[in-house]
């Protein structure tokens, strides 16, 4: 059985990835800012 993956809307995918990705991105950015102290 093989399904064509087109039924999940792009909007749902963007929403799901945003909910997981935005906090992660914020955390990574904050950590990078703190990590820069190593090079000061």
């Amino acid at each position: 059985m093989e399904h064509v993956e087109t039924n999940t809307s792009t909007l749902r995918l963007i929403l799901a990835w945003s909910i997981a990705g935005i906090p992660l991105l914020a955390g990574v950015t904050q950590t990078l800012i703190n990590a820069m102290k190593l090079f000061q």
Partner: protein
Amino acid sequence: MAVMMDTSETYAKAWIPFLDRERTVAKPGYSRWMIPPAALCVHLCIGQAYAFSVFNLPMTKLLGITQSAPEDWKLTELGWIFSIAMLFLGISSAVFGRWVEEGGPRKAMFTAAICWASGFLISALGIKTHTLWLIYLGYGVIGGCALGVGYISPVSTLMKWFPDRPGMATGMAIMGFGGGALIASPLSVWLMSKFQTATDVGVFNTFIVLGCVYFCFMMFGAAIVRVPAPGWKPKGYTPSADTGKKMVTKNDVFVYDAVKTPQFWLVWTVLFVNTTAGIGVLGQASAMSQEMFPGHITAIAAAGLVGLMSLFNMGGRFSWASLSDYIGRKNTYFVYMCLGFVMYITVPYAGGSGNVVLFVCCFLIIVSMYGGGFSTVPAYLRDLFGTRYVGAIHGILLTAWSAAGVAGPVLINYIREYNVTHGVPKAQAYNTTMYIMAGLFIVGFICNLAIRAVDSKWHMKKPGEVDAGAADAVPSRA
């Protein structure tokens, strides 16, 4: 002995129909790319455990507020909260692994969400009433169970959705566990600063908010997770392409049979070695870097190094696991063992020659491989034991993490202490440990070398398959 495969899929009905495994079977057209964010929602939340130390200092001033009062809790007492949680992570993943596998990812994620939120709320009650055992029970025991169940809940589902890239798929989820602390640490500090008053350090309200926020996030993950329909395969994927690889099996091994095989214990040892080495430096990086480079690495720079290591820990989980899809799991672990050996031998040289850049590079590579070890191992287990019980087998394997959690810091701290008390300069006090770690990697290399494909006698029999020697066979889920 081999176990009969049961395809009737007669799973126990959940008391909430929404949680039933049958309700999570994806309808035609459901995108598999919805599953990684579902897994991330759970792992990003439970990854908070790595950031629990931000509460330690405020919790020593719950009564004194500005400084510790005599009745306030001591840091040594608070240290047990994290240790209990880690202990129950190992216990719950081993005990509930089979239940997670058979009940499906949604039921497991829902359970993890309930336990994780309850853990925070019970701990908040412990803060309010200043009762430490309530925090041990809440965050330690109940939260620890959430860690174990939540950690393994999406693993086999992801591998079923991504049979063509199992390493990358589990790498994405397990990367979330590493990334959880990056979110939780600044968020917790910010919340405590908002709730802080002249009579309250703000931990109580922070726990309540975190419990509620994490519950919503994890429930979102539970709502969007799906298991693929039986027989589903990604477009253009031909399973026969894998059969050319001797280490990759198309058969399944029952969870309790897997632990009887030498392969399981060899992988256990390899993971234990890799984790021991990583935990040792991860926990002590700040102090170690300052002592090895006095005057060069300040406390602020050391904090920056720890932050950078967190990023490499997280990034390594995704990149090494993704790489393993191309070079194979066994080869990836060979890289960890060989490169780890070289890095640990190099650290004392970097310290002796005052080469900070070399030292930092070594630590970043070591910690990336530490993360990579975690994210590559589910796919390694899948290659050896098949997909059917990989989550449950992975759960039992995580006892290696618990064991390494004890061995790593002990090796670093006690040997350093011994050396310092015997007159070794602080800058060289870690050298012995580094050489011991390098030696451990040789053990890991040999164990990895010894791993072969699992003997066919352990393979679960498909319905109708006759096995003359299977008189003692037990139906699966008996």
